[in-house]
């Protein structure tokens, strides 16, 4: 089970939400946290490590109040992408091969299900964050990737294929 320091989430909230948003979110989900054996004073220690399931509870609070959530795989996975791009050139060559694949248009729901099943429980967030810099070029927004009914075209699927190959060394098995 993955963990993250509470400070990272607090800092994210400070940068991305109104003042006192962390407190509001925790206030909203307090009983659910207590049910998980997590109490308020735990969060006073900035290095306290939040478990994945606790972060999911906190994220429901952020989503309900501020319509956004903390995506904790960002920094780690993007750095993975960068380091692998620098050090593992054979993989890149291999991925170039897979980039030549043609994909049929597929709804987000199916792609997301495949990614979550075959890569990791956090892989879809990683895909979204890694695609962010290319969103304009792909003529879409990150919200499209949260809409299960949105249909991804071949160009987007190729990008997703490249990402999951680089990070998880897997081939997206949704092909024509």
């Amino acid at each position, binding site marked *: 089970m993955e963990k993250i320091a509470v400070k990272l989430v607090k800092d994210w909230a400070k940068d991305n939400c109104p003042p006192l948003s962390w*407190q*509001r979110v925790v*206030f*909203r*989900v307090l*009983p659910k946290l207590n049910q998980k054996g997590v*109490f*308020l004073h735990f969060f006073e220690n900035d290095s306290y490590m939040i478990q994945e399931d606790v972060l999911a509870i906190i994220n429901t609070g952020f989503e309900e*109040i501020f319509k956004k959530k903390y995506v904790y795989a960002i920094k780690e996975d993007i750095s993975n992408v960068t380091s692998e791009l620098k050090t593992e050139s054979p993989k890149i060559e291999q991925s170039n091969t897979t980039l030549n694949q043609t994909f049929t248009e597929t709804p987000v729901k199916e792609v997301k299900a495949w990614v979550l099943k075959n890569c990791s429980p956090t892989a879809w967030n990683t895909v979204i964050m890694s695609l962010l810099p290319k969103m304009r070029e792909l003529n879409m927004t990150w919200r499209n990737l949260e809409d299960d009914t949105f249909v991804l075209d071949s160009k987007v699927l190729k990008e997703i294929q490249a990402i999951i190959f680089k990070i998880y060394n897997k081939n997206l098995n949704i092909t024509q």
Partner: protein
Amino acid sequence: MKPLRGNFDTQYNTYIAAGEPLIFHCHHYNTFLQATLEDTKDYIDIYPILIESAQEIVYAQMNQFFSENQIAEIEERKQIAEDFFMFCGYGKFSLENVSVDGGKVVSESDHYSYGWKSKFGLRAENEPMVSFFTRGFLAGATEAIFNLALGSMECKQLSCYTKNDSFVSFELTKNINSKKLSNSPKQGTTQNHTLNNPNNTSVNYLGIREALTNMPIEGTPSSKGIIDAFGVLLTRMYSNYYCQTSYRMLKKLEETMGSDGLMLADQLLTEAGHVCAFNTFGGIMQSAEWNGLIKPMCQTREDWVHGIVAVVNAFGWGFWEILELEPAKKLVVKVTNGYEANSYLQTLGKSSIPISFLAKGGTKGIMNLIYNGDITTQPSLTDEYYSEICNSPKAFSVRQTKCRAMGDDQDIFEVYL
């Protein structure tokens, strides 16, 4: 029709309308406070608290007014309730179709619905409509109008701006069995005092209070009962409404979660006051009224602090006096007859924690506006500016060092770096 208005009582530094203290507050405070209270919805039955607190207060007030003035005609009573709602800036509705058995109420405007949408936008599909205060007002007023028992009416909201409806409407129905509700604490446990001009400033506290308490800050038919002043939507709100809703939530929180959530609730209720100070005090310090009446009295930045504290003395929040002001470092304020302690002492007695959250946030907001940000340069009071001020290393903190509800003889607040 004899309108219900009330008077500013200089002995208590508050407005009293048929036994109920009224205070000025803006939509930023009203909606942020409600949002914080609603954050407990998954573990506290908060919605009845938001409705019934208003119902009890309005019922008590209207009953007192009708009785003292011997107003028996149903139509006149309806007009008084409609007129008072509008005068206070709550919005505008018609009770024309309401009988002793209930009926539909269509509103031309509603402070909470309008204010919420303008601050937070639309509410989610799974969230209820936002005008809990109005629901309680309508239920309590209808009970008083038709000589019904408190708790005998129920009010549902049928449409709301926050649900993208183009108008706001409600439906009143009669309960088969009356709910057991409480009496309003009315003025509560009060303190008498006299406001004096401090001798260390050129700001004329008494003159400012006199001028502001006589200004026609009120909703009118043409404004549809909305008071758009100083860049905010103002209301003359029942102080007991804030107190009853906040303290009932705190009690339930303690019963449900133990003391674990109290510190968090303290921070958030204080933040509501801070948001209010930023927007309302900030708006006032940029207003034509400030520039014409108060700014000419200000020779130093410290006079700006005195100026806004003088204004607060006309808000109905009790007597605010500066005990100590160290420029850009420290502010100590004494509050006499603060409405929070008045209400708490009357309804709940002694508290184990300081409970004057609004005053805490308000005093902190004054220092942040004047010495952390720089309100004298007329900045835009945007969300971004608010975040900048809050996240600045120069941001002030606040603590309540004395609390009447804890047994002290006064409320004292210390704002520090």
